[in-house]
Structure formats: C-alpha cells, structure tokens
C-alpha cells in the first residue's frame, strides 16, 4: 500500500564531527555518510555517546567540532524524525488524540492515524488514556508517530526498548519499509537489529565508556 521511493535521493554526511556533552568530547572525529535506503546502526557501551550523536544530528546539541549536512533534501521543509529515550506521549490524551496531534503538527503526509495504530498493534486501545498504556505500548505509540508523517531521515534511539519479541520484528519491518521508500535511518541500539537484506546495514561502534 505504501508507494515505493517517495523521497528524493538524499545523503547525510558528517565530516570530522565530534560530539560531546558539557564540553567534553564523547566521540572521536566521525566521518560517515548515510544515503537513501541505508540504515546506520550505532553500537557501543552505555554512555558512549550514541544519544549525544543522535541529538547532535537532530540539531539539539551543538557539535564540538566538525560539521554535518544533509544533501538532496530542500532546506525549508523539515526532514527528520527523532525518536528518543523519552516517548513524548501525553497522559490525559487518548491514544488517538496523541497521534492525531503529532500528525497535524508534523504535516500529515503519511498514513492515516487509524492505519498507523493498527500497524503498531494498538488498534484496540485507540480510545484509552495514553497514560494507562504499558511501557511497550507507549513505545509502540511513539513509533506510530514515524508513520503518520513521512520524513526522509529517521533518528532512532533504542527503538526496540521495552518491546516484546513481536515488537522487535515490527521495528525491523518499519525500518525496512522506510528504506524501501528511499528513506535513511540511523538507529542506536543494544540488541541487534537485522534487516532482511544485510547489505543495507552499516554498523558504527562508538568508543568504550570514558
């Protein structure tokens, strides 16, 4: 049902990118590039800077040195989805209201809300207060956000956290489809994600814990 190749070909390229926190470098100089249809896995022990790197790419944290750029996407429109440790799900709003909100705010270019919910397996809980969701269900709802509005680049921070076995497959399926559509993904993860076509995956191991 999803169109193939909806995104213009694009490349995320970092050169000499050093990111860190509180003025301390966490990563060595990173010079990597991720292009359409590719997924970069960030591995590394706790505190090695995966989240920091993702936040830097998301533009939340300023890089200590070097730079990064996205080639191929037009400047004005937003081009990335960030899915972090925290799920940004509001209690007191129903599951559907949560998703509808993000769909409206991010420009609902993607699947309709109901479809996305069914996709992540929350179809039955649409009207439940999102504050009641279990950890994994909350995570699934956060993932549904990626579906309701298309963006070429996904930055995923431990997408499989709190998910059950079936949830792991869900994540792989979603990433795979995203790559099919010509998107790119950078995912920090501890438990291995294996796409059907391993050629699409690269792995970047960040330094041992300082």
């Amino acid at each position: 049902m999803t169109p193939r190749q909806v995104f213009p070909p694009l490349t995320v390229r970092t050169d000499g990118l050093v990111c860190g926190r509180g003025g301390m470098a966490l990563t060595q100089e990173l010079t990597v590039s991720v292009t359409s249809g590719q997924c970069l896995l960030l591995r590394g022990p706790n505190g090695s800077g995966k989240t920091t790197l993702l936040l830097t790419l998301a533009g939340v944290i300023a890089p200590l040195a070097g730079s990064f750029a996205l080639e191929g996407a037009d400047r004005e429109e937003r081009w990335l989805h960030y899915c972090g440790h925290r799920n940004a799900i509001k209690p007191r709003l129903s599951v559907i209201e949560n998703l509808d909100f993000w769909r409206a705010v991010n420009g609902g270019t993607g699947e309709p809300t109901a479809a996305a919910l069914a996709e992540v397996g929350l179809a039955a809980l649409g009207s439940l207060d999102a504050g009641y969701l279990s950890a994994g269900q909350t995570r699934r709802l956060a993932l549904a956000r990626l579906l309701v509005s298309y963006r070429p680049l996904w930055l995923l921070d431990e997408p499989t956290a709190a998910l059950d076995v079936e949830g792991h497959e869900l994540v792989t399926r979603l990433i795979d489809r995203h790559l099919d559509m010509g998107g790119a993904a950078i995912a920090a993860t501890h438990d291995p994600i294996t796409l059907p076509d391993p050629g699409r995956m690269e792995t970047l191991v960040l330094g041992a814990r300082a």
Partner: protein
Amino acid sequence: MTMETTPKQSWWNRIAHPGQFVTWTRPLLWPLTVLTALLFLAGLYFAFFNSPEDYQMGDTVRIMYVHVPNAWLSQFVYGVMTVSALGTLVWRHPMADVSMKAAAPLGAMFTALALFTGALWGRPTWGTFWEWDGRMTSTLVLLFIYLGIIVLWRAFDDQLRAARVIAVFTLVGAINIPIIKFSVDWWSTLHQPASVFRADGPRMPGSILTPLFVMFFAFTFLFLVLHLKAMHTEVKRRRVMTLQRKAAQGVGA
C-alpha cells in the same frame, strides 16, 4: 470493586454487595418519597396559613421555615459524609464510598440553599444580601469545602481509588469544621458587623416552632430519598463504566 460474597451473611454484608444493596433498598424508595411529600404538604400548610407573622419581620419570617432546615441539613450531610468516610477507611465497606460520593453534591445544594434563603431573608431584615455575620460566613466556608470535595471527585478518573483519598480529606475537614466555626465566630465578634439580626434573638412561640419542626423533618427525609436515589444511580454508573472498559478491551482480544 470485588468482594468475596460468601452466602448467607448478615444484613451488613448483604448491603455490602452493590447489586444486592440496590435490590434491597429499592422497595424503600417509594414509601419514603410519599412520606416526604406528605410532610412537605403539612409543613407548607402550617407555614403559610397557620403561623403568625413576625412582629418585626412580617411575612418574610416564613422564609425561616425553608432556611433553618437547610442550614441544619448543610451540617447534617457533612456528618453523613464523615461516617461514610470512616466506613471506607476503617471497615472498607464498599457502599460507604458510594454513599460518600452521592452525599457531596446534596450537601453542597442544601448549603447553597441555606445561603440563598438566608440572603433573601437578609435583604428585608438587614437591607443587604450579604453580611459577614459569623454563622453565615461559616456556612459559606462549609460550601467551599463541599465544592472542593466535589471537584476532587471529578478530578480522579479511577473512582475506586479516589474513594479512600477523598475519605481522608473528608475526615480532615470534619476535624477542621468545628475549628473553623469557632474561629469565624471569634472573628465576627472581634469586629461586630453594623446591624446584625441575631437569628436566635426573638424567642419562638409554639405557633412558629411546630411548622419549623415539620419542615425540618420534611427536608431531612427529602435528603434521605435523594441520597438513596443518588447511590443507586452511582452504582449503575460504575457497572456501565466497567462494562464499557471490558468492551473496549474485548475488541482487542
């Protein structure tokens, strides 16, 4: 709300089960309603046709027949709530929190009526609707407490959980109400308002007392009827809610 309903219990345990409570008390509802109606008829008859005008207040004295019972109920209902609160916390009686929740809006209503009729009464007697007289003021504060409790009930989405929390607050309020009354009286004597009609000033002849008492019982029974009815509806509401929840999740299975 789950309780092991072992067969053949005392009436206490029988009414412990919401469903049984409803079936047991519904027969009471109609007789009580009729009795209340009769009392009101009698009371109003006395009040309007069979009691003298007040020598200084004229016909407005008749407001008293509505005002005083309400004023009394405003305190009585809180007493009911306090007992229910104890029932929830100490005996964990399942109907206690239902009764507690049902009583709050009624208490607020009666208190508001006491204030309203009092204000109506104040207009001719004091020339102003509102005077910061001790008893009126403490009634106003009581109204605030009722409203606070109602707001609290609305704020919790899980009523079973709410019950115990609100019970705690109700008890705290019960301890405080006498203190509040006392402090307010102290305060109003501190700066005596200009010309307050001392409510208990004129001694009341029997011709005033009889209707007062009849009305008094009429209103009390009115409360009992409404309370019972409200409890029934509350029980029904909870059943519906759980059913809805089950349905909502049943879809997913």
